């Protein structure tokens, strides 16, 4: 492929530079993400895509490249690619072409991969990434360009460790639909690359077009890294193939950038090559140089007609697109008054956002956000559980928050209640009733407690009269005396009145 002309969209920023022996260096990163399309069947055959089946179970005659077999496009994969393109605010190409990428490998039965080369289904788009929060709790938002998205077939898997001299091939993945999503070289740090992958995965999951499970290989990244003097000419890049976790992407970039800087500072030059990341050693190593690069002999696949669809088809898909994380975040900030920080955290996972929206419905949004971020996510994290496995349902948490809002229980009691529900389950209202956790709002009872404490602590009374801030001590004592069930506002008011301070 003749690479698209590189355009520098970023202003060099010293906080992202890497210090070398001869001065500062800037890292240039572009990512090619392979995302497995969520679909029942493969891209060009009716075979199942189900994960975890026995080896070579999901293989049709087409996948095994038997003589005379022909590919037929799976329309569901096309729909998912278009929806993804729309989610990336990208140009949808109503006419695209499938090409053959020719090379020999045992896990590539046809001897070519059907891909899209010159005319991809999706053109340029954008992703807003958020790096942060920093020490001030601020996020830095940056727009990263998408170069293109195209559909292609996955290869099978070669297995080298089951026989002393032979390799085996599992074709279950052969022909599974992938979206290759290519970014522009717009990222300038490992953190940005990680944020990009995180955001892309979030968008794909919101859309339901890829499950984003990097462990299962549903999402892999090829990472293009080069270094340059800040603002200078782009350097020679190396491509680190098939990195399968966001953390490893960060590590690979950090290592690779420093490797390149060391070579250049030693007077060397960077060879354009393909490298592999070794997660055990935390380093990249050469896989093949440019001289060994394949000549893929791309040409349009004569078995497939150009892929064409109407604008109406695209418009219909656009209409049914779910609310995506950026829009959701804006809505949570603008309509529910959440902080950008809280909203950012809530929208990272659609499941968390959905949980939040259920809890917040008809209740105080900020309060709901606090409870989910500080209490629920904290407790889940401690228990090693995902939000889908939360022992507290949105209804239960909502009930707890409702009781805080109508002053049935105090915030402090609510924490206890939450812990009970988290560990034991049950109807929060019933628990409050049965275990006598209701807040004491009976002013008579509170008044008696206040009077008693004032009577028993004359010295403190004198001090508080001189220094009204010390009234808090009495509030604490009363709360203690009432087992935390007294309404703190009521106590505060009474204490101040009795002490005669404002």
């Amino acid at each position: 492929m003749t690479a698209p002309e590189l355009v520098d969209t970023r202003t060099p920023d010293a906080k992202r530079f890497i210090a070398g022996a001869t001065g500062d260096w800037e890292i240039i990163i572009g990512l090619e993400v392979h995302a497995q399309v969520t679909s029942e069947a493969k891209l060009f055959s009716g075979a199942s895509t189900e994960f975890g089946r026995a080896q070579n179970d999901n293989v049709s005659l087409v996948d095994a490249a038997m003589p005379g077999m022909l590919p037929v496009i799976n329309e569901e994969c096309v729909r998912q690619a278009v929806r993804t393109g729309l989610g990336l605010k990208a140009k949808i190409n109503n006419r695209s072409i499938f090409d053959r990428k020719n090379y020999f490998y045992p896990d590539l039965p046809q001897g070519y991969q059907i891909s899209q080369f010159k005319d991809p289904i999706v053109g340029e788009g954008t992703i807003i990434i958020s790096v942060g929060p920093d020490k001030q709790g601020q996020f830095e938002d940056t727009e990263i360009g998408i170069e293109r998205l195209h559909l292609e077939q996955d290869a099978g898997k070669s297995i080298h460790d089951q026989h002393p001299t032979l390799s085996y091939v599992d074709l279950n993945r052969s022909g599974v639909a992938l979206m290759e999503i290519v970014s522009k070289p717009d990222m300038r740090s490992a953190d940005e690359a990680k944020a990009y992958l995180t955001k892309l995965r979030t968008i794909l999951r919101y859309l339901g077009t890829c499950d984003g499970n990097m462990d299962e290989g549903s999402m892999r990244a090829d990472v293009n890294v080069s270094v340059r003097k800040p603002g200078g000419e782009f350097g020679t890049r190396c491509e680190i193939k098939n990195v399968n976790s966001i953390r490893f992407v960060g590590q690979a970039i950090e290592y690779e950038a420093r490797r390149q800087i060391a070579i250049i500072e030693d007077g060397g030059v960077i060879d354009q090559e393909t490298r592999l990341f070794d997660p055990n050693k935390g380093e990249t190593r050469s896989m093949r140089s440019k001289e060994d690069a394949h000549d893929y002999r791309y040409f349009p696949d004569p078995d497939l007609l150009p892929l064409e669809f109407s604008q109406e088809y695209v418009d219909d898909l656009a209409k049914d697109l779910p609310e995506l994380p950026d829009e959701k975040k804006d809505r949570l900030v603008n309509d529910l008054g959440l902080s950008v920080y809280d909203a950012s955290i809530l929208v990272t996972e659609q499941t968390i956002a959905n949980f939040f929206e259920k809890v917040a419905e008809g209740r105080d949004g900020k309060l709901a956000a606090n409870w989910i971020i500080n209490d629920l996510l904290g407790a889940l994290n401690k228990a090693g559980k995902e939000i889908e496995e939360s022992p507290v349902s949105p209804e239960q948490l909502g009930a707890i928050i409702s009781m805080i809002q109508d002053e049935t229980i105090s915030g402090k009691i609510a924490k206890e209640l939450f812990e009970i529900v988290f560990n034991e389950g049950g109807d929060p209202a019933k628990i409050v009733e049965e275990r006598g956790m209701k807040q004491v709002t009976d002013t008579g009872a509170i008044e008696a407690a206040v009077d008693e404490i004032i009577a028993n602590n004359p010295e403190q009374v004198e001090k508080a009269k001189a220094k009204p801030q010390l009234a808090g001590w009495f509030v604490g004592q009363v709360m203690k005396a009432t087992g935390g069930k007294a309404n703190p506002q009521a106590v505060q008011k009474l204490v101040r009145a009795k002490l005669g301070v404002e």
Partner: protein
Amino acid sequence: MTELTQLTIAEARQKLQSKEITSVELTDAYLSAIDSANEQLNAYVKVTHDKAREMAAASDAKLAKGEGGNLEGIPLGIKDLFATEGVHTQACSHILDKFEPKYESTVTKNLWDDGAVMLGKLNMDEFAMGSSNETSHYGAVTNPWRAKNSNESLVPGGSSGGSASAVSAHLCAGATATDTGGSIRQPAAFTGTVGIKPTYGRCSRWGTVAFASSLDQAGPIARDVRDAAIMLRSMASTDAKDTTCVDMPVPDYEAALGGSVKGMKIGIPKEYRMDGMPDDIEKLWQQGIAWLKDAGAEIVDISLPHTKYALPAYYIVAPAEASSNLARYDGVRYGLRVEGKNIEDMYEQTRAEGFGPEVRRRIMIGTYVLSAGYYDAYYIKAQKVRTLIKRDFENAFAQGIDTILTPATPSSAFAIGDKEMASDPVKMYLNDIFTVTVNMAGLPGIAVPAGLDEKGLPLGLQLIGKPFDEEGLFKTAHVIEQAAGRFTPDKWW
């Protein structure tokens, strides 16, 4: 017994339906004809005696109940390029050794669904690459025709040489064939048989071993125009498994026969008058013109200016696609494997031994023209030429031309092992000079026997039609057939 093999499909069908003969009798007649002739002609690479008799018996049972399809009980030969379930399917290549698919090609399934009986698999040029049927791993096929006063063995043409030879020698009632650059029409012309390459997309390619996907098209070779029409009706279909196959109903082609060509405009392209073309060919062409004129057609001189670029462009496009299509024959999953030191070595040994010289040559040409730095100069340019060739035809049809008449081949059949052809592959490629344009444009073309040359060998005329006007071709070819008569070789085998 011989009498039974003399029957055309139309005649046999009538006798089967009237229960004058049975399919088992007819099938046995063909099987014994094959058994006594195949050693000399080498038309079949696999004869499926048992399967043939089983299918024939099943057809007889249907016919007895007054049931049965369009081809019920008719014994056919199948080119080795079509996948036939559980039966030898090797595209006559060593690399597909012992390959027996677990599936049936759409074209053959259509034939069996209509009641046809399979006699066996027919010889062909390896992967349909050749114009003489000499590149087959199973050896050359002999043409049942011989020149007057000569015992020299002649080629039946290619790549569907086994199909043409078997039909001409009455070793089957009709045969399936395929045509990528002339592989139906040239052998039909060399053997005095009728062969039609339908419009690209009319027959499904599913289950047919691919040579050049954008050009490959299946069609029948038969003893006369009517039989070809009967067979094509059954072979053609829509097919969701081939996205290049059209979603159009298949007409009753036979019904087009006997129609008048009065008032039809027949185009005569001046570019097909080649330098050094034998007088016999020119004479034949003029004869064809005269017959059609006598039948009331209007003869119009036309120009197809890009014709001379068709053959070079074809020999870029077809090998390019072939080099990719044949990559799957790698010794990993099926067919031949020659063990090697490592995977690359295994690939190289397997493919070097498994492919014959002509296939290797085309893979190399195709790989070269798709390589970085050459792609634009060769492949892209050839595609542009292809567009221009297509436009030439569109312009002619837009002028009101209904059908175009040309010679089918630049010569009659030549000798097996012809030194000139063997020493220069381009000479062999020139056999397709009149036929490749039709594949490049995706149009239908039919070769119909029109006479004998001075050596007493059959020659054919080609009619080229508008897209999906196979009916027009059958109608016009039938007029030529009526005027020219039919041609049968003297039995020497």
